[in-house]
């Protein structure tokens, strides 16, 4: 049986994942427009501290700092030749924290969007994107992740390329989420039920929704996902901590730990199996969620 499904089964099909990485990095001094992945090498202590804080708060899954770790996203920072180095470093840091945790903690290798629009709508050929994901996945696997988490996707073509690319590089399990942030669809127009069918056809059985426009919207989306999913599919929910606001020269998210605790209870009631949070969330939010859930 695969490691992720096995983990879920041993935990009565409900596990708590972690919260935001970017939000924590910006709080730690990452500048606007800066490259989070560089910190895997330059500030490994900070990355480790963030993972540790999530584990201490109750996370049973931690997500390596590799959201923008594919060559296309790294190219924005002239780091496209450092895919292996930065992903390997990230996976190892998370691995180390997981291995010294007081309970079983899995490491997810984070695979975020390429930022490219695929042909024919855009100019990028699917094979190029597939290769980029394969390259990233190989380094994450080498660094010791337990499974891959494809996140925040908006185009089905790109999820397909990601799944194919990862499978060509590793046999580890794959989970995937899409972001339904545009009138309850992804920005490319994909509806929750459509996503369920397409992901399932790709062989994904742990899937869901992340990021987006706060817990209220996620609630409706997860309801749709739950209604559409085959019986053997496990659901993921990772909402942002509310909505972004601008105050005192910085961005903050308006969802308090209490709001997220309430969200946690609602998600469990809707049948979510892997529960975490996204932009704006902190270990404090995860702790409030764990306490509310009585874990």
């Amino acid at each position, binding site marked *: 049986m695969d490691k992720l499904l096995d983990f879920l089964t041993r935990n009565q099909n409900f596990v708590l994942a972690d919260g935001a990485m970017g939000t924590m990095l910006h709080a730690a001094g990452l500048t*606007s*427009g800066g490259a989070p992945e560089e910190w895997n090498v330059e500030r490994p202590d900070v990355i480790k501290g963030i993972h540790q804080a999530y584990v201490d708060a109750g996370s049973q899954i931690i997500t390596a700092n590799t959201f923008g770790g594919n060559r296309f996203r790294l190219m*924005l920072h002239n780091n496209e030749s450092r895919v292996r180095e930065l992903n390997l470093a990230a996976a190892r840091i998370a691995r180390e924290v997981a291995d010294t945790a007081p309970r079983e903690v899995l490491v997810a290798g984070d695979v975020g969007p390429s930022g490219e629009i695929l042909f024919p709508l855009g100019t990028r050929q699917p094979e190029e994107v597939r290769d980029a994901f394969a390259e990233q996945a190989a380094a994450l696997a080498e660094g010791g992740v337990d499974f891959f988490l494809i996140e925040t996707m908006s185009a089905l073509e790109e999820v397909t390329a990601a799944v194919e690319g990862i499978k060509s590089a590793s046999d580890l399990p794959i989970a995937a989420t899409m972001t339904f942030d545009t009138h309850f669809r992804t*920005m*490319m*127009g994909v509806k929750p039920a459509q996503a369920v069918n397409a992901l399932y056809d790709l062989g994904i059985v742990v899937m869901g929704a992340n990021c987006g426009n706060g817990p209220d919207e996620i609630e409706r989306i997860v309801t749709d996902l739950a209604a559409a999913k085959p019986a053997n599919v496990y659901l993921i929910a990772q909402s942002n901590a509310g909505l*972004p606001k*601008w105050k005192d020269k910085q961005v903050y998210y308006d969802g308090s730990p209490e709001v997220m605790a309430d969200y946690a209870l609602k998600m469990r009631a809707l049948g979510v199996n892997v529960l975490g949070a996204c932009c704006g969330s902190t270990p404090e939010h995860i702790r409030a969620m764990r306490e509310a859930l009585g874990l």
Partner: protein
Amino acid sequence: MTETRFADLPAELQEHYLNMQDDLYDGAKDEVVEATRQALEWGQGPGAILAHGLVAGMDIVGKDFGAGILFVPEVLRAANAMKAAMEILRPLLTETGVPKIGTAVIGTVKGDIHDIGKNLVAMMWEGAGFEVRNLGINVDADKFLAALRETNADILGMSALLTTTMPYMATVIERLTEEGLRDRITVLVGGAPLNPAFAEDIGADHYCKDAAEAVDTARKVMQLRGGARG
């Protein structure tokens, strides 16, 4: 530059432009290009074609996108069709009637790769008679500054679509001040997560909610600057 108002055009031309808007809405690139050529043959000026066909069409696309009727693939197809038509109009806009009213540099700030809205603004500024240096996406302060110096620009336009990248606009403005360029350049900013309060907070001169407002604002800015100079 004043084009004939749509309502004052002959019926056949009105119909032609409405069809063109429909084709743009459907992302039918070849048809939009053909309609552009046809209008030119009938003696329509490039400014009029841009305004009544392309910009008016994009307006509807933008509204329906905002309302959740269209999604990104449709917006992209429409933008591509507009771009193809612009390839024909651009040289005409510069060589014919439309006088050059100013120089602008525009780009999407560092860390941000959204360029659909910014490109619309750039195309419409061109249409309004600006010479535009479009720096693309992921533009850092150095690149903005170099382009502003090279072109001796009047206006800097910055676009950001992410809450994580919009603060970078403040960084660019600080650099302008540090390097003594701030007084010479009018800074306009835009992008979905911005608002007037944010623009004021970071010391930009104006916030533009959409491309039409970006054109109006830029025109007004040039009138004021012209006034101050003359």
